[in-house]
């Protein structure tokens, strides 16, 4: 079957959306951006195809008459198992890279031993990360393994009186290499089969459906890339579309009545006005200063040593947001510390920080022409409930009642737009 793919190479994450021949979304994939852009793109497309196959699998099961509830259980278990397989694979790779670095570098036997210990523990813990109903701090190997490594190695460093910084440095070096070498090319089939072996809910029907899906041929018919902040995108010039247009079109596809789109990503914020056909009529974006973008929240989460997705819920508990002025990303941590030392409550500070970010976005929105009905919020930060709440409030205060659309897939908006451009191009060529 033919598919078209759109790839959004963002500053923090790379997203891919795969569309089927009639324009339906087959799958979505995401990975963290890294210095090897091509690998980032390949991984995200790979992930999107995996999710596409899972989708197809569900269809196949449905066609076999498996009822919805059971399908859900089976698929979830299967997917968790699949992820665990992936994780273990990456962990092995990490182990071998670290082993090499340990040998090549100036590391002591003590240090090598500590690392081996930590890696072993991580291997043992892998199983507990995955399973039905489990959720993780992040979906990216870098963060997941990094968080755990840091925690474990701190203990090791203390008991063995080793330099914590050096051991962290080793991980940072290794992960860079791991990320930029493995292009998740291990086949879907071997992993899904291993995952199948692992789950209790398997049966013949499932095995059959899996074989069918594994056998299915997916052929790329077109691709369009977008992305900002990088001088060189790994796409041919004619396959690149402006991010602004992709976001406009993507938002339009999700919510056809959208007239205003706000996208807050890792390093940039965009305010876009679109017409009834998803065509951009005006836009504004931040310039030269990344204050108040998603990365800012990343620093804050790091500072507090919690996951990004925990930040918003914590801020939502606030009753009295603190007024924050500086949204310089790099100062974020300092600001947080200072406020804490002044005795302000964590959630109140966080609420203030979120409001500050949204205030900046409000300025851009105003600059681009205000907020029309309907309004769609996209980008990674749209996943953050505190940001959404602040936005909702500020819109209400300044523009009155507006329909605010947020899709759980909002982070894929740009990639969706790109995929639609790819699809249009393919149709044009196909029909001609």
């Amino acid at each position, binding site marked *: 079957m033919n598919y078209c793919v759109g790839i959004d190479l963002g500053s923090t994450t790379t997203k891919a959306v795969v569309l089927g021949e009639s324009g339906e979304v087959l799958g979505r994939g995401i990975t963290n951006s890294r210095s090897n852009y091509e690998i980032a793109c390949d991984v995200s497309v790979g992930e999107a195809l995996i999710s596409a196959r899972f989708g197809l699998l569900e269809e196949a099961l449905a066609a076999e008459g498996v009822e919805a509830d059971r399908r859900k259980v089976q698929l979830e278990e299967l997917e968790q198992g699949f992820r665990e397989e992936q994780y273990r694979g990456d962990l092995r790779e990490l182990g071998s890279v670290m082993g090499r670095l340990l040998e090549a570098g100036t590391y002591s036997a003590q240090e090598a031993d500590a690392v081996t210990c930590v890696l072993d523990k991580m291997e043992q813990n892998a199983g507990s990360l995955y399973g039905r109903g489990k959720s993780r701090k992040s979906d990216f190997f870098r963060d997941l393994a990094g968080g755990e490594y840091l925690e474990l190695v701190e203990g090791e460093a203390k008991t063995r009186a080793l330099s914590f910084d050096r051991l962290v440095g080793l991980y940072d070096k290794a992960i860079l290499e791991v990320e930029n070498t493995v292009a998740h090319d291990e086949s879907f089939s071997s992993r899904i089969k291993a995952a199948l072996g692992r789950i209790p809910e398997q049966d013949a029907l499932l095995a059959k459906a899996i074989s069918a899906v594994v056998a299915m041929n997916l052929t790329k018919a077109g691709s369009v890339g977008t992305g900002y902040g990088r001088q060189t995108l790994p796409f041919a010039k004619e396959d690149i579309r402006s991010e602004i247009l992709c976001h406009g079109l993507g938002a339009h596809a999700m919510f056809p009545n959208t007239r205003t789109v706000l996208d807050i990503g890792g390093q940039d914020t965009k305010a876009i006005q679109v017409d009834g056909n998803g065509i951009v009529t005006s836009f504004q974006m931040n310039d030269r*200063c990344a204050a108040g973008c998603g990365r800012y929240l990343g620093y804050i989460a790091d500072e507090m040593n919690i996951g990004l997705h925990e930040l918003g819920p914590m801020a939502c508990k606030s009753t009295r947001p603190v*007024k924050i002025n500086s949204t310089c990303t790099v100062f974020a941590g300092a600001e947080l510390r200072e406020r804490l030392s002044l005795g302000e409550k964590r959630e109140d500070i966080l609420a203030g920080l979120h409001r500050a970010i949204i205030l900046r976005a409000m*300025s851009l929105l105003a600059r681009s022409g205000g907020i029309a009905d309907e309004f769609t919020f996209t980008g990674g930060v749209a996943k953050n409930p505190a940001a959404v709440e602040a936005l909702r409030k500020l819109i209400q205060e*300044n523009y009155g009642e507006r329909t605010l659309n947020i899709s759980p897939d909002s982070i894929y908006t740009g990639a969706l737009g790109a995929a639609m451009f790819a699809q249009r191009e393919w149709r044009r060529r196909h029909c001609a």
Partner: protein
Amino acid sequence: MSANRILELVESAEETYRDMSLASVKAWKEKTGGLAIGFMPIYVPRELLHAQGVLPVGIMGGGDDLEIIRGDAYYQSYICHIPRSTIELGLGGQLDCLDGMLFPAICDVIRNLSGMWKFEFPEKLSRYLDVPQDFTPEMGGEFYKSELLALIADLEKRGARPYDKEALRASIRLFNELGGIVRDLYALRRASPWKVPTAELYCLQRAATIWPVEEAITILREYHELVLADETRTPMDQARVVLAGSFCEQPPLGLIKTLERSGCYIVDDDFIQVHRWITRSLDVEGDPLEALVNGFLFDAMASPTRYCGDKTKGTELVTRVETAGAEGVLFCAPSFCDPALLDQPMAVASIEKAGIPWTAFRYSENNGQFQVIREQAGTFADSIKLWSGV
């Protein structure tokens, strides 16, 4: 007892100017049925407005309380803060009780704001008040007079009382009195800065651009008498400094307090210049319009917004430092303020020549963090204190 009363006066002043909805102006309008016209910092001939029964209302930006949402849609990031907060106030309806705005010739930003006002508030009076940079009566004077006449006509068209010589004389008398009190307070602060903390003086002066002149006179006079008599205010070991550069966009009150706390007595400044722009009492004998013009031409304060002609930049600042017995200068200008920042190197040259120490920093009206400034001002005060006389 008197300490409480002082506090009360200062608090009510702070409340008045922080009240972005201009409740006191609304009350005045209700009571008198007169027009109220806003004006941007530095200088406008308030006497003229008063004589026509109009309440001049100082609009000096949105301060640190106002969240900017639409204002940024009007100004790029590299433009100072005051125009964006002013337009934010306008669009937010807080200035609705004003029947118009006057934009004196301060700089290109304010100049262009006058045009934006015409777009956004077409139903209101909005006038760019050009002031001469030629200070001869036959050229600059004539031109300024024609600007004043045009203003008079505009106000009349809006329903203000027709221009009347006697009324203008009476208004000039009142504003002379207000100006006199402010000058007295400045003199007292120069002599005994612990008696007149700048943060207090600032609040009172600022509110005095909003209060009707009669009320301002009463309150400032009372304050003056109270602090003079207050024996509990005693000197501390602080450095005496002149502050320069804050003539348009105003620093947040917290900044002024930070400077004082970090060990500086501010003994002269250029805040809220409208009260001191004309440096002496205006003539009440001859043609009062002529008196306004002559005051502007011959007796106005030096300012970065005023052409210095043949004089050397900064000499006036040196004189102020000497008059105030100050030990140093703090250049405290708004970020992106072209007039202040372009002036600074010239002023620095003059004061360095006179051997006066200085330091410089920038702010914007909505700054909330003062550590860096505290550190700088503190070090400056430290160095004056540790080394003065050594």
